[in-house]
């Protein structure tokens, strides 16, 4: 199939075949490339046309793509074999973070190991959790039994419980989302989904007691943005003003007053979609959302082509983690969700999430590219 498939691509025979031989999916690459290009353009504006910022980000995205290429070359069996080990390593590192982690900006997220660059183990868990749960279901019959679902939920809950108190609600949510996505795709019955959902909804007030003061503050601010105009509520008010004032077609690139005059906080990172809204308007935002939707659609389609249960669940789960980023970020900036620190995938300034997410897509490509009918 890959050789036939290559002929359907808009790339010409030779290059298409080369990509397929490298286990890279041209459609997915195209979608990701479009998002990255769009993101760099907007970042250029958000950074007040700072070429250094742009070059930095391009370098990081390039590195993330390199990681993706490498990940795509590995046989999915390797991921299956190493999934539990990766998960256990991740848990150990998370515990280490809680014990000896470095505190940056009030959060203990980083681990400084001798001889290694400092890194966030929680980032690893965004991949390790979907892989581990896919591994868990791979060895069991589907649709899963309730107790397997509960076991999978436990696999998902343990790292989440270790990440949220760092505090890092955003990453915790993404890790949990990856696990829950895999469980949903495993074939669990819809009535079980309903039951679990209502359980979570009922239990959510209990969350209040484990949240830190600043997390509570964010929820309260979400419920009433006018509460603290100079703080978190200010961010949301300003981002809504940026998007709303942009209108249908925006104020044009580089001309957004909210973003160019610094009224919009975190305009290069978590709130960058407000820059898109202000300068490129509803048109720009919709275009980006469509690109995300196409990437998700393509990746889900690739998941259905996977060879085995692990492949299907891992690819599907990793794709949905990507979408969870989009949903939480856009929902937060537009005031639909409370403020949690989640970047807009491949657009926000920063390399960590880009590496994680593209590594995930590398695994998706590996699973798809190594599938044989």
């Amino acid at each position, binding site marked *: 199939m890959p050789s036939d498939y290559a002929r359907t691509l808009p790339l010409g025979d030779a290059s298409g075949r080369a990509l397929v031989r490298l286990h890279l999916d041209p459609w997915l690459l195209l979608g990701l490339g479009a998002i990255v290009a769009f993101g760099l353009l907007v970042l250029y504006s958000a950074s007040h046309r700072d070429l250094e910022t742009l070059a930095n980000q391009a370098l990081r995205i390039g590195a993330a793509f390199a990681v993706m290429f490498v990940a795509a070359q590995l046989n999915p069996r390797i991921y299956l074999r190493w999934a539990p080990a990766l998960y256990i390593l991740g848990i150990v590192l998370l515990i280490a973070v809680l014990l000896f982690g470095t505190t940056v900006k009030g959060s203990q997220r980083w681990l400084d190991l001798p001889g290694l660059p400092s890194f966030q183990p929680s980032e690893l868990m965004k991949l390790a959790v979907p892989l581990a749960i896919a591994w868990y279901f791979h060895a*069991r*019959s*589907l*649709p899963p*039994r309730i107790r397997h679902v509960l076991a999978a939920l436990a696999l998902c809950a343990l790292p989440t419980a270790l990440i949220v108190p760092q505090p890092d609600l955003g990453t915790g949510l993404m890790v949990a989302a990856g696990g829950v*996505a895999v469980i*949903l*795709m495993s*074939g669990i019955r819809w009535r079980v989904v309903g039951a679990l959902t209502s359980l979570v909804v009922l239990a959510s007030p209990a969350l209040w007691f484990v949240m830190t003061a600043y997390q509570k503050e964010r929820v309260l601010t979400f419920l009433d943005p006018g509460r603290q105009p100079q703080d978190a509520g200010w961010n949301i*008010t*300003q981002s*809504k*003003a*940026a*998007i*709303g*004032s*942009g*209108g*249908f077609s925006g104020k044009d690139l580089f001309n957004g*007053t*909210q973003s160019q*005059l*610094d*009224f919009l906080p975190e305009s290069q990172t978590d709130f960058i979609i407000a820059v898109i*809204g*202000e300068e490129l*308007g*509803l048109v720009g*935002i*919709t275009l980006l*959302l469509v690109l*995300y*939707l196409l990437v*998700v*659609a393509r990746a*889900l*389609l690739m*998941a*259905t082509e996977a060879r085995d*249960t692990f492949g*299907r669940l891992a690819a*599907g789960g990793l794709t*949905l983690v990507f*979408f969870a980023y989009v*949903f939480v970020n*856009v*929902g937060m900036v*537009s*005031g*639909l969700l409370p403020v949690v620190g989640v970047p807009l995938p491949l657009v926000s300034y920063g390399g960590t999430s880009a590496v994680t997410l593209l590594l995930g897509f590398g695994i998706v490509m590996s699973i798809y590219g190594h599938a044989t009918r």
Partner: protein
Amino acid sequence: MSRTFPGWHAAKGIFDRDRARQRAQLKDVDRERRDFASRTLVVFVVVAVICCVLTARMVWLTVFKHDEYRTISEDNRIQMFGVPPPRGRIYDRAGNVLADNVPVFSIFVIPELTDDVDATLSEIAALVELSDDEIEAFHTLASESFPHSPIRVKPQISPEERAVVEVNRHRLSGVLVQPDTVRHYPYGEVMAHAVGSVRRKTAEDIRRLDRRRYSRTQFVGKRGVEAFYEHSLHGEPGSRQVEVDAHGREQRELARNPPVPGRNLTLHLDASLQVAAAEALGERRGAVVAIDPRSGGILAMASVPSYDPNLFVTGMDPAVYNELANSPKKPLFNRATNGRYAPGSTFKPVVALAALAAGVTDWERTIVDSDGTYRLPNGSREYRDWTWTKDNGGGQGVIDLHRAIYRSSNIYFFELGNRLPVDVVPRFAEQFGYGHVSSIDVAGASPGLLPDSEWKTGARGEGWYPGDNLNLVVGQGDLLATPLQLATVVAIIANRGRVVRPRMLLDSDESLAEFEENEEQSAVTGPTPDDWRRMVAAMEAVVHRGNQGYLQNGTAWAYIGQDIAYRMAGKSGTAQVVGIAQGEEYNEEELDEYSRKHAWFTAFAPVDDPRIAVCVLVENGGSGSSVAGPVAREVIDHYVLPSLAAAPSRSTALASESGRALAAPPRPGD
């Protein structure tokens, strides 16, 4: 051992069953693939729906709430800044600048750019002198300004201070040295009381003043003309519509509405006359007010000692302020407008005119002063003439009204006082400005005090006694007036009854809201033209009647009348500060300085064409004629002589009447 574990079999059974089913289903790969595909479709639909929800949210914000959010974002970036208007300048009648705006350098601090405002202020204080007042003023301004706007810390620094700050700029973040303007008074203390001064806007001013008009204003008029014409001098602030960033830093100007500069004022003041007046007073405490009787314009208004108003502009060292505020010489006190003193004998012409108008006396009636004392019928208290001493019981002899003025006879007026009905004098004196403020635009002028029976009932709870009339007619008792008021009185006499109201403002760019003349030309009612003519003649005799023997000379002739080149009319006065016991003699040497009598002299010239009316007060100076008289002469000389030089024929003719030889050695006249 494991076999004893409860439930082991059950668990093993479940496990085995699972394995069996798993094995059975393992081969059903196609079904699993189909299941996953359909499930993926559902998931994708959910994803698509979420995307639609997000898009719908964006549509809501960008389309339906667009106007609201556009307003918020415009309000964010567009700020209105006030532009302070330049304060109007003040000129004297010859165009000399009395109050100016001069360019200087000042130290400013932008609070936002400092790490710690207080630490930065301490750093500045280590380089240049910074008073507590200046620090307080800074905090006052900072509290009502944006953290990004420069706030003045130290106005008007010297070139040396500027150099010190510039050298240390690298470690003073948020500190600027910028061009600035401050109010400057070129004449310094000479004009301080006449022109007044501005001070830096205080917290109290901020509460009191129109916030919009004064938002960027640095100085507020506090005294004198600066205070009275504050509204006009201030002008109207302009505005700038500016695009700012989130830190309030200005990006660019979008629109500008220039300020309307404050009005320039030209005053009646004559700077050279003012200087002459201050110099004539010299080291003595006192006041000189000179009025042009034709217009009421105040030509000079000096109060000595004075202060340097420039010190008040930018705030002064508290030690200097305390010295000024607590000095027994009261340099901050404007004696000319607020010093209230008994007018003494300068009141006699007014009383005489009141008596003539009331028909109580005429120019021909005479009395005899045999021993320099007067007693009310049936009264035991002895009222004395100013010539009375223990050894001299001679009196001044036969006195008519003319002589009563030029000899300043108390006895004549005591006798008049006994016959004048209650309240006739106060009702008449009111017309000259006694007891109320007749000036149009003199800030904070005192009304003095004109006692009458109604006042006495209210203030003392007792009726008007005949003795009160006797005190009143010689300008003593409860009667109080300011030098400005007495200058007005003598100007009205110079005008032969035409009333003028004293005023500072001569001219301005355009008519000012503060200046309300609403004055119909009025005249003092009662005296006939002949009364005025003869009163002026009597006052002329005060200065010019000489070489007739001591008791026949004008009281001031010996001191100012002998070598005068023009005709001057005047009246001296001496006001008691402490009461002298019955039978005791006033002895200047025995009294401490501040208990001695105040010396007055009021005069106008030239007699036939009065162009200047002057009132001189010398606090605790002693005799009016000998102490205040020469001051008045010097001031009038300064004003009148230059114009006489232009027309010499007339002046020499007028001067010839003045005596050349000195008669008996003069005694201090009243």
